[in-house]
């Protein structure tokens, strides 16, 4: 249980830092990749919470497909902030 606590706290801190970074970082493409990373960390947390179905779904949809959608949008808007 101590190991699980360490894993969840470590992943959680990493996620929160990455989430703030995604909102303040200058380049839009970095923000998109960081949000994909947050989704992947969320799927780790789902696995820690014994929800393997949700973890698979989050990894395939949240980390892969929504990242592609945002990258497409960035290409079409075509701009940094």
């Amino acid at each position, binding site marked *: 249980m101590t190991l699980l606590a360490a894993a969840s706290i470590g992943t959680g801190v990493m996620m929160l830092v990455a989430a703030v970074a995604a909102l303040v970082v200058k380049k839009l493409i970095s923000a998109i990749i960081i949000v994909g990373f947050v989704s992947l960390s969320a799927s780790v947390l789902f696995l820690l919470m014994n929800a*393997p179905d949700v973890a*698979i779904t989050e990894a395939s949809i949240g980390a892969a*497909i929504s990242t592609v*959608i945002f990258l497409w949008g960035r290409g*079409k*808007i*075509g701009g940094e902030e």
Partner: protein
Amino acid sequence: MIRTIIGLVIVLALSAIVVSSVSDYSMPSELIGVGRGYTEQGVNDTGSVNLVTAVVVAYRGLDTLGEVVVLFSASTAVVLILTLIPIGANPTPPSSIVAFTAGILPGAIVLFGIYIITHGHLSPGGGFPGGAVVASAFLLVMLGSNTIPGKSKFLTSIESIAGLTFGLLGFWGMLTLGQFLNNLVLPAGSPGRIISAGIIPLISLAIGAKVASELSGVFASYRKAGGEK
């Protein structure tokens, strides 16, 4: 700057409200209510070993049908809005690494997606993640080609047939057992075998086909919409 501070104040106030409202919440020691019923009765009621799939497809099948409708309307809206953007020129050809990978990987990815879909009642997975995996194989194929996808009768007919199958399987339960989407119109079999749990595998297949074709349609219309700004 002033905007950032106002946003911060609003968020901090909201977090204070949330923290004060959950401060007397303590860690529960056992399940209560429907969750308890599902874990105790789930296998007997549905024959599905994976209780999440049992809830998604059997107990809350009607919710899932509504969810599929939401997905359908969202993807239709995306395709409709994208028709406002003129069709672009052919995209730049992919690098040889991407083209080579897109030639060999999609078959394996589709196979894995079908595995996830068909084993939804036995192991983690089911229609939603499996359909997304199949759609990502389609995305890879699209990234590896340097032409824009044309109109696909195949995708739209898969989508319609899958949605229709879901509804008709629901009505089958209504006609024979008096309950919409009752999954035991087929025998439950022995839990843990691949052919068991009534119509849960069939509905998983329908959901998987629906999700895969809808996400693929969204990707295809993304690819079609042309031109930088």
